[in-house]
């Protein structure tokens, strides 16, 4: 486009555009790609066609490069692939998008975004490791081989990482997800109820903020005099502050915090049926 609008005036706009086109046929291919191009010359079927063929060839070459199975993923292959795609990228930007012929400001704006996006992406990848698709700490050793034609999506239980236990609670063995045959109560415990975030059950959950529930059914029998185990567990879910477990109860350094569980359970929206299932499940933990 023209960079001298002062002389153009508003009315001359359309003439200006057609004038641009008039000189297409005069531009030699070599001059079009490499030399100085007279203002307004963009190219026609010939130039664009050649460029398209060039891009198609690059794509074909890329495809050929990855054919040898042994080399796939190695840097011998990655380097030329990256270089070729960069060439394609800039050919499209410079010639198809006419950026080579545009006002320098447009270059600056686009390149600013492009370079920044590139730097951000590279920085992020580097902050997480290196450009190698090797599993990092968490995934390493946990990855399972893939068996074809699995229809069901895997169900990930929310994973609770043991927090440094401020209350002196003991974190038991690592979490195992709810088994397929888990009771509804156990599923609520591990899932929607979010109980496992704070409570531990040996071999199942490792939460460390609240009391350990591994033997809750036994413990609950004698915790509040005159209250049955079932009533105590139900009350502890529905109205956690009615009785707050003390340091002496659990043999630890500090009382549990009043109000802590109310704060986390009040928004859960558990139904009465859910609570029944939970109580039923917890009563099995002797």
């Amino acid at each position, binding site marked *: *486009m023209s*960079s*001298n*609008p*002062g002389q153009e*005036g*508003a009315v001359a706009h359309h003439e200006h*555009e*057609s004038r641009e*086109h008039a000189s*297409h046929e005069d531009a030699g291919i070599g001059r079009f790609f490499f030399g100085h191009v007279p203002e307004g010359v*963009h190219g*026609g*079927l010939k130039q*664009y066609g050649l460029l*398209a063929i060039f*891009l*198609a060839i690059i*794509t074909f070459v*890329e*495809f050929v*490069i*990855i*054919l040898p199975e042994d080399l796939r993923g190695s840097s011998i292959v*990655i380097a030329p*692939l*990256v270089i*070729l*795609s960069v060439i394609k*990228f800039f050919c*499209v*930007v410079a*010639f*198809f*998008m006419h950026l080579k012929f545009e*006002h320098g*400001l*447009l270059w600056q*704006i*686009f390149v600013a*975004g*492009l370079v*920044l*996006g590139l730097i*951000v*992406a590279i920085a992020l990848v580097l902050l*997480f490791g290196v450009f190698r*698709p090797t*599993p990092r700490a*968490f*995934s390493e050793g*946990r*990855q*399972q*081989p*893939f068996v*074809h*034609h*699995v229809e069901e*999506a895997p169900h990930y239980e929310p994973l609770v990482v043991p927090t440094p236990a401020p209350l002196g609670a003991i974190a038991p063995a690592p979490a195992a997800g709810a088994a397929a045959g888990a009771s509804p109560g156990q599923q609520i415990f591990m899932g929607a109820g979010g109980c496992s975030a704070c409570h531990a059950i040996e071999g199942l959950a490792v939460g460390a903020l609240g009391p350990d529930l591994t033997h809750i059914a036994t413990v609950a029998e004698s915790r509040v005099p005159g209250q049955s185990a079932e009533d105590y567990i139900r009350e502890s879910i529905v109205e956690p502050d009615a009785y707050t477990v003390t340091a002496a109860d659990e043999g630890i350094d500090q009382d549990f915090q009043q109000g802590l569980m109310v704060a986390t359970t009040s928004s859960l929206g558990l139904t009465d049926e859910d609570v029944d299932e939970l109580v039923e499940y917890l009563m099995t933990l002797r």
Partner: protein
Amino acid sequence: MAHAETAHAPPVEVEEATTTGINHRKLLMWVFLGSDCLFFGSLIATYMVYRGQSIVGPYPADIVDVPITTISTFVLLMSSFSMVMAVAAARSGNQKRLIQWLLVTIVMGCGFIGFQVYEFNAFRVEGLRYETNLFSSSFYTLTGFHGAHVTLGIFWLICITIIAARNPAGRPSGLDVDIAGLYWHFVDIVWIVIFTLLYLIGGFDAGPDAGHAAVQGWNWVTGLVS
């Protein structure tokens, strides 16, 4: 430059003179494209950060079909060529050629989307749902948003074709087609990056049991070469 001129401008479409000589809408489009680089940059970064971190399959090597995506990449690349021919036709005021090239571009764009729909469906059948693993989430999000960009571009080109077919005085102008073209080419170059990183390089990332890396779609190629 002289804004005073526009004081009595008739209500027809007259390009306003600007400080830099660049049309407002064209500048807007380039700023948008610069901004969109960051959008795709972040999505690609997410994919690259999570590359190789999925803990269940399917892993890319189990299902990614590089040969067929090479064809769809080729289709999208060639649609850039037809787009640039449409721009050239619009600039020379050749409405008939403009419509022809636009239709070619639209058909190729639809072809690309068709390949993507086929691919997504094939992946789903193989067991790669959106919620399956990290690979599926980041892959579908990145390529899905790219596909959404292409779809929007097709929609835009269809609108321009309709306007050109009715041909109300001077519309679409060369500039209208040019700006749509910029968007179209940008979507193409984003795919160039995605194709290289997700298919040519990342398409062979295998799970822990790499021995049986799937060869879906590779059968015919290997047959051809050997």
